């Protein structure tokens, strides 16, 4: 795992509560808003389950800690999106809270329904970018959520030990989290 230079993190007192909101102007229509919100809630919960940080959805975009939007091409932050595949999304380090997704992608929340060869799992990308928003940079551990790439039709939402060690180095552990549970869930998944 790795951190951004200077190891920035949300510096409020633990337990931290962060709000997030979706831009009312920069949205996509290929998925319903409730599907998008459900995917993001699951993504935030992956991180909330391992650190003492909770995330609440807000309707007040202007005051939210984390601002989420779907943009096309040049959207004013010097990192233009590039159309189908390529760069999928980017997010800023703490405490900026900006989270941009490429509106040109074929975003999916259910690969049974979305059959496209270039469909990209929204929850996987959201989980990865939330790692950046919390202060993690990219890792070289291929199985980890913070590995920089995600192939079409790939789902990668379960935090790996590398992800958890990194984020807990910034925020400490969620008192309800235990590695034992993680190992057991991994074992059951493997035996399955």
């Amino acid at each position, binding site marked *: 795992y790795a951190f951004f230079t200077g190891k920035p993190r949300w510096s409020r007192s633990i337990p931290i509560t962060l709000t997030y909101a979706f831009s009312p102007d920069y949205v996509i229509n290929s998925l319903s808003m409730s599907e998008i919100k459900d995917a993001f809630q699951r993504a935030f919960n992956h991180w909330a389950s391992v650190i003492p940080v909770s995330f609440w959805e807000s309707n007040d975009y202007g005051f939210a800690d984390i601002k989420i939007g779907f943009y096309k091409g040049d959207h004013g932050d010097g990192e233009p999106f590039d159309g189908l595949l390529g760069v999928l999304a980017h997010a800023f380090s703490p405490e900026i809270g900006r989270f941009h997704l490429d509106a040109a992608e074929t975003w999916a929340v259910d690969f049974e329904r979305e059959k496209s*060869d270039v469909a990209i799992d929204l929850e996987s990308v959201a989980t990865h970018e939330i790692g950046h928003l919390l202060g993690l940079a990219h890792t070289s551990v291929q199985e980890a959520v913070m590995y920089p*790439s995600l192939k079409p039709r790939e789902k990668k939402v379960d935090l790996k030990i590398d992800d958890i060690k990194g984020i807990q180095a910034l925020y400490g552990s969620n008192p309800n989290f235990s590695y034992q549970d993680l190992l057991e869930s991994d074992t059951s998944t493997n035996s399955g």
Partner: protein
Amino acid sequence: RTAPFPSSKPINPTSYHKIRGYTWHEFQKFVDAGRGNKINGISELKKYFHRFGYLKIDSLNFTDLFDEHLEHALIKYQENLGLLVNGKLDEYTVSQIISPRCGVSDSAPKLFMHATRN
């Protein structure tokens, strides 16, 4: 610590490789290119490595020659992403390069911090 061979296989060629028009798909033609080769369009690969923090280069060097800058960037990329480190554009490495990815830089992660300062 690192498996001698990358654990991820190149993407099944029957999947999205056949689709034209997606970003970076033209990099497929660079498979097996090596240092000293002059290949039309490889300057785009240099821009890719520059963008994601592997190539500190000024625009004068965005030539179509597979030079030592590009080879050095390729080795850093392979090391950083747990790929077989050989300085070559082998199939696995090209498959990883053209995979969709996050826009945050890999090895100079203060980019967005810098943006903050602005």
